[in-house]
């Protein structure tokens, strides 16, 4: 199967959250992920896109297929120019939340995926990169 085309979804409102996760699911499926993994990926995208709407108001979610000599996978980058995160260790702790939400956004997203990376700078924004590989 060829690597599918890159997808970029700009996130401005709650409707875009649904769009982003649907696009992510269809890309995951076209890469060859089974329904269970495609749902994990769609759920992770939903949480990241919601963080953008809640904390930064706007941003984008970029998705692309990746292929190495021995594996195929999907990479999702959620990026915003919002307020940024003061303490990354805090937001990666289960139960932490600054918006009165459930407080398990990022640690939960990390559990759903194979790889997770976050970069953030106060007043500059946040970029979260997640990957999942076909098993």
């Amino acid at each position: 199967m060829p690597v599918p085309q890159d997808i970029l979804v700009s996130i401005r409102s709650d409707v875009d959250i649904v769009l982003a996760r649907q696009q992510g699911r269809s890309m995951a499926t076209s890469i060859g992920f089974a329904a269970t993994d495609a749902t994990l990926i769609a759920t992770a995208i939903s949480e990241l896109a919601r963080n953008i709407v809640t904390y930064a108001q706007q941003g984008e979610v970029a998705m692309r297929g990746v292929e190495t000599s021995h594996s195929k996978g999907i990479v999702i980058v959620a990026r915003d120019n919002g307020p940024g995160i003061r303490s990354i260790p805090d937001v990666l702790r289960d139960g932490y939340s600054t918006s009165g939400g459930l407080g398990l956004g990022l640690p939960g997203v990390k559990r759903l995926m194979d790889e997770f990376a976050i970069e953030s700078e106060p007043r500059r924004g946040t970029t979260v990169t997640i990957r999942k590989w076909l098993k």
Partner: protein
Amino acid sequence: MEVPILKQGRFLIATIQAALSDADLLQLRRALIDKVIHFRSHGVIVDVTALDVMDSFATRTLRDITNVIRLRGADTVIVGIQPEVAFAMVQLGLTMEGVATALDLEEGLAHLQQRAARNT
């Protein structure tokens, strides 16, 4: 996308038909609570079979619906959570503590009828 709510005797059945945005979920919450009050319903079923994802917002909204309806003295059952959706919820760390769930509409109705029989 509005979720149709059907009145079935003392019960209400809300059948979600497609993916819902946050605004749609909040609209469902409002409509269900209004109808429970208006019809003095004893029980509510929310059928989520068509939901592709249950993220933190959807889970919290369904829990809120259940809690408000419980304060009105009525029961809520969530039916039709898909197996892969359930798996993703658990991985994410979401629980539906205190919320009744059932396999499908039929079992959800049976659950409500049992509860109603016990209360009369």
